[in-house]
């Protein structure tokens, strides 16, 4: 974190430090892990939470936005119904049988025996989520998918939360050539201002073909800090779908490193924002090797007094020739009091690449609305259909009908309550 001038510590900052102190001796970890935890909390004590002066947090001034920090751990909650019928559910609180080719263990064990340490590194000097989660993580799940495994059914990792504080981490390693669909599901069963952090560390082996869906549906007063760090192997194909439709204060970071030649990343995101919520999706993508393809498309719908942020940075290294990267961020702003800030960035050091980015913010198209009304569809219904259509366009890029139907049903459910 950048050095900042001395300033009074906020109540939330103090509460974060206090909650760490209150958990001393109860958080799992050997000596090395404990040292890492101490170091991260010292960083937070020294720097405080980031303000808009820290570039990576420019649109999300955490110091003023984070107001309350619950002290207690969240209550253990039963797993939720999976997003897709027939999924294998692995909840942090209750991870039972895993399918063939999938090894599951509790992250608390990796902390206790110290094996978690190598995958606890920060993503950048401003990695507040990495610090907070690194200091406080109590559990999570480690998944190892054996090379060549083909999952018959989706595997849903659940972080179900009932208030309080929870910090979990999910190191996932996908073996060479493995195939499958994974859902990372964040839900709350109550709405009393939980504070949650979750980091997924996803290593996709060479030639693996993975669909990874992050569905964040936290309660209306919850704070959610999510991060997924992805290492993409050669020839790997990853479809990453990130959906936010909940939470009062949300930061979802996506950090991707395309390390192996010939990989294909298709990132799609839907943010449904309502109430007085603040939702920030920040992505960094490093194209480090030649011949990789990536597209990133986000669709945001803003109601009420909600605020949304998208920061997308694509960096193409000098040797990463023939990279083809295209990023778009489209927002439907349905309220005069809502806002959306979009900051796409391209940093290209190679000379033979195709890169593009675009951002739009629009209201519903009056021509569309008029046309639908001339067919007898009233204003309210027509608007709802057009909002759904705006999202459906990218949901339907997923090839699996069952996935499309399930996601659209979740989004429709949210929209029906916000129309």
């Amino acid at each position, binding site marked *: 974190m950048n050095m900042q001038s001395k300033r009074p510590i906020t109540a939330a900052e103090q509460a974060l430090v206090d909650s760490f102190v209150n958990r001393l001796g109860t958080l799992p970890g050997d000596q090395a892990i404990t040292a890492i935890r101490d170091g991260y909390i010292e960083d937070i004590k020294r720097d405080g939470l980031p303000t808009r002066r820290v570039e990576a947090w420019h649109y999300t001034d955490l110091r003023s936005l984070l107001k309350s920090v619950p002290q207690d751990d969240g209550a253990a909650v039963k797993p939720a119904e999976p997003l897709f019928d027939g999924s294998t559910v692995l909840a942090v609180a209750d991870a039972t049988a895993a399918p063939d080719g999938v090894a599951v263990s509790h992250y608390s064990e990796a902390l206790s025996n110290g094996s978690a340490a190598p995958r606890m590194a920060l993503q950048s000097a401003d990695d507040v989520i990495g610090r907070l989660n690194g200091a406080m993580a109590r559990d999570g799940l480690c998944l190892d998918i054996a090379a060549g495994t083909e999952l018959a059914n989706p595997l849903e990792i659940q972080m179900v939360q009932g208030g309080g504080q929870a910090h979990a981490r999910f190191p996932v390693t996908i073996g060479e050539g493995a195939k499958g669909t994974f859902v990372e599901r964040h839900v709350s069963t109550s709405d009393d201002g939980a504070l949650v952090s979750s980091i997924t560390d996803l290593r996709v082996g060479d030639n693996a073909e993975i669909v990874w869906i992050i569905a964040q549906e936290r309660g209306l007063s919850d704070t959610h800090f999510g991060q997924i760090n992805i290492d993409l192997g050669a020839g790997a194909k990853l479809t990453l779908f990130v959906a936010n439709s909940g939470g009062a204060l949300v930061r979802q970071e996506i950090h991707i490193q395309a390390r192996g030649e010939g990989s294909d990343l298709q990132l799609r995101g839907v943010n449904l924002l309502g109430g007085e919520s603040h939702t920030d999706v920040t992505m960094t993508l490093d194209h480090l090797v030649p011949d990789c393809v990536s597209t990133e498309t986000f669709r945001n719908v803003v109601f009420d007094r909600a605020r949304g942020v998208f920061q997308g940075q694509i960096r193409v290294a000098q040797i990463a020739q023939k990279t083809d990267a295209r990023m778009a961020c489209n927002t439907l702003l349905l309220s005069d009091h809502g806002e959306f800030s979009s900051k796409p960035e391209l940093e290209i050091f190679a000379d033979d690449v195709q890169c593009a980015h675009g951002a739009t913010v629009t209201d519903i198209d009056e021509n569309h609305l008029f*046309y639908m009304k*001339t067919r007898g569809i009233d204003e309210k219904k027509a608007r709802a259909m057009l909002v759904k259509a705006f999202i*459906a366009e990218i949901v339907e890029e997923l090839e699996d009908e069952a996935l499309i139907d399930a996601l659209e049903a979740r989004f429709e459910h949210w929209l029906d309550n916000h129309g």
Partner: protein
Amino acid sequence: MLEIKNLHARIAEDGTEIIRGLNLTVKKGEVAAIMGPNGSGKSTLSYVLAGREDYEVTEGDILYEGESILNMDTAERAAAGIFLAFQYPVEIPGVATMQFLKVAMNEQRKAHGEEELTTPEFIRRVREAAGELKIDMDMLKRPLNVGFSGGEKKRAEILQMSLLQPRLCVLDETDSGLDIDALKIVSDGVNALRSPDRAIVVITHYQRLLEHIVPDTVHVLYRGQVIKSGDKALALELETNGYANIIEEAA
């Protein structure tokens, strides 16, 4: 069926008056053609009939089946049986044509206090109407009008018209962008809807369409007014002599 009395309408945004004292009566069962040079107010008239909010009626009235529709919004007018076939049908990404048809039909049924159509009944009706217009069912799985050719768009308009069974059809330049074969199919579709209970207003530039959809009356629109009315012979006269004589006559 339709009675337009001394209608004045302007563009809401800048106050430009487009319709300036227009009078027109179209009876039940009648096919009325409205012709006129560019900028005479033909498309504006169709929008005003449909209730587009970009236009303000400042004077006069529009009676539909004896009642003023000026206080009805676009969707209410549609549910009451007024249908506008667009000159440029709007592309709506993300809304499958079939889904759109189903919602439109059911919303209108709801407005009439009727039960929603069952899916098999809906599909049966679409299949039948689409067949007559030589529309491939695969086309209807695509988003509404997106990537449709000019001819496909116009056929899709007529398909909607035949499924919704309106009582007053307003066709705005339905012939534009159509080749001869498509013109024939579309005209046949419109002719199939001719009925003693229905009025059809055909807005067009050219006599060509009127060879296929033969009108009972022809009205010449110029500077926001009907300056001459007659039967189908008037359209032929316009084709031969242009608008100049009639405009001069009226002046």
